[in-house]
């Protein structure tokens, strides 16, 4: 009998983290550092209130320290998890990078939130995308079930010795973090099976040696090259994990790129997170009116899904990239990356919308479609819905 629960994204994330934490009870346990910030607070609260066998959650004095606890726990061989958002993630940033560069399999749920000022607690992707180059794998979720599943699969790929690096599971603040939806919860036996004990090859134990040592320039390059190559390995590992996940839990987590009605499309609308859900409805409506459009959702942003995107764009002459973020002085972050792989002659137009939690409504997307179908060349990024 399926265990279906009506829960928020935060609750789903924490439930998955607790299951994953318990699953390492036969190993070196679970230890996590946490600090509250809207909209991720309820995830950490839930985590703090659970009994975790051979587990401990440390309530620290800052996000920077929260990640430091995770680093210390992980380097000692424990499974580790934390959650934060917006300015909290930016404050944490130094240790976020350290966790990656020490190749520690920490999993973090980011409740995407605008980075202030202006102070605002609602969602956009500018926090996690500011850490695009931090060496973490990044997964962007579309609904609460995906959040639950992504946390489990994140531990699986993070701890795989071919990958060994942290994973950020991104859920849009409030849109997912605070919205209840029916979510299928796994039981402990299943999770135990899916997540074997963590064995960290470079665990700091008894041998005198330095973790995080100084190195020469050429050794830094060697470290980065290995890390980069391991990122690319994450593809295969993710695919294996998807299959294993399906065997264990009888449902399949989404592919790194999810397409919707793109087969004969002239225009593809590319987005991340929950916006894709609205885009899909617009695609249905406009297809009824005879427009050949489709939707492409990027769920795994790092490593960047070059091949899957190239495949999704086959035969497409126009691409509209919807960014819930902005790289100031450049344009949308997602747009920049999509543009880098589009075929010559293809119009790749950027639309920035939904910053600071602004609703990206069907009429906004229709506006983008109209513009994208009419334009002859790629122009500068267009802000849609500003000041409404």
């Amino acid at each position: 009998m399926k265990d279906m629960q009506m829960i928020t994204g935060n609750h789903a994330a924490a439930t998955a983290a607790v299951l994953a934490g318990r699953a390492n009870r036969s190993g070196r346990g679970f230890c996590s550092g946490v600090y509250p910030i809207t909209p991720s607070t309820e995830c950490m609260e839930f985590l703090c209130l659970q009994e975790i066998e051979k587990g401990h959650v440390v309530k620290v004095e800052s996000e920077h320290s929260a990640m430091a606890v995770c680093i210390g726990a992980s380097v000692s061989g424990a499974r580790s998890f934390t959650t934060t958002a917006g300015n909290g993630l930016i404050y944490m940033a130094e240790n976020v990078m350290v966790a990656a560069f020490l190749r520690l399999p920490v999993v973090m749920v980011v409740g995407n939130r605008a980075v202030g000022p202006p102070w605002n607690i609602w969602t956009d992707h500018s926090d996690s995308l500011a850490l695009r180059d931090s060496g973490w794998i990044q997964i962007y979720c579309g609904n609460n079930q995906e959040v639950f599943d992504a946390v489990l699969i994140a531990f699986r790929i993070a701890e795989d010795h071919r990958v060994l690096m942290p994973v950020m599971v991104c859920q849009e603040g409030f849109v997912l973090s605070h919205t209840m939806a029916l979510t299928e919860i796994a039981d402990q036996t299943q999770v135990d099976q899916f997540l074997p004990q963590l064995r960290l090859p470079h665990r700091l134990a008894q041998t005198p040696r330095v973790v995080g040592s100084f190195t020469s320039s050429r050794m830094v390059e060697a470290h980065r090259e290995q890390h980069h190559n391991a990122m690319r390995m994450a593809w295969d590992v993710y695919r294996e994990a998807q299959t294993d996940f399906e065997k264990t839990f009888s449902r399949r987590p989404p592919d790194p790129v999810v397409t919707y009605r793109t087969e004969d499309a002239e225009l593809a609308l590319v987005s991340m997170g929950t916006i894709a859900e609205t885009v899909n409805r617009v695609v249905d409506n406009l297809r009824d009116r005879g427009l050949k459009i489709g939707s492409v959702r990027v769920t795994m942003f790092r490593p960047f899904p070059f091949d899957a995107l190239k495949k999704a764009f086959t035969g497409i002459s126009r691409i509209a990239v919807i960014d819930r973020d902005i790289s100031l002085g450049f344009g949308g972050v997602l747009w920049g990356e999509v543009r880098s792989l589009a075929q010559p002659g293809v119009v790749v137009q950027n639309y920035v919308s939904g910053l600071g939690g602004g609703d990206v409504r069907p009429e906004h997307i229709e506006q983008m479609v109209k513009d994208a179908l009419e334009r002859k060349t790629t122009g500068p990024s267009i802000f849609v819905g500003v000041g409404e």
Partner: protein
Amino acid sequence: MNRPESYQDSHLLRPGNTNCGGCGMSIAFQMFKRSIVDTPVQLVIPACCAAVAAGGFPFSAYGAPVLLSTFASAASTATGMAQVARLNSEDIRVVCWAGDGGTYDIGMASLSGAAERNEDILFVCYDNEIYGNTGGQRSSATPAGAGATNILKGKIEPKKDIMSIIAAHGIPYAATVSLADPDDAKRKFQRSIKEKGFRFLLILSPCPTGWKSDPSMTIELVRLAVRSGLFPVLEVENGSRWTINVEPDFSRDDLARYVSLQRRFKKSEIKPDEMAEEIDLKWKTVRMRAGCNTGV
């Protein structure tokens, strides 16, 4: 308890490391290791001279496992390690070994957090009263009158009273360690490595390079700082029971000699008499707190 076998070297800081001659921190490491003998430790070292001393990959100057943490995060990184050791019933002592920057300044928030949570960590601050490995800039541990590379003459503000701040956390054990009083130092190292919960040690650690002193004068400088009352040697149990371990003679001659053996006080032209006022003020507080607890 699982006690790891044949765990560590006879040295904690191995010979051949790159520390300057007469480095107080090097001496502190030797005395610490000789006191704790074979107690298994893991070190967490934030950015400081001790991090540089580790040397370059794949070598290590340390005879123990070391994690080099970010500057502000020694105590919180150590928290994760100590908690996992506890979860696995391992008899390992997690020790933070930080400079004054990583303690008084950038490390203060995480240090305070770990102390308040009473994490099972020994936090050792070797205090050379400057940012040493960046070349000698002021920290909040730099005493009034001392010069630094980013001050025109001498520091105006007095040294931050870290022991009062730490004691206010009510941790099980906090003490200052004099490298010139080895018996007292040994007792403190041995007690603090064994004690459960958060422990804090402050070691006055002369830096010949930054203080512009003769490397052979390191221990002498500590002796003079203790005798003159500049560096009170004391311990605080449970944040409330203060004990003075070494009674100074408050000699002005010792104070004058302390100043004259270094060139860092030259530019400010600070007079021993001015420093003595500061010492008097400091000792009023210390005596008030210690009551009649003197000696051991």
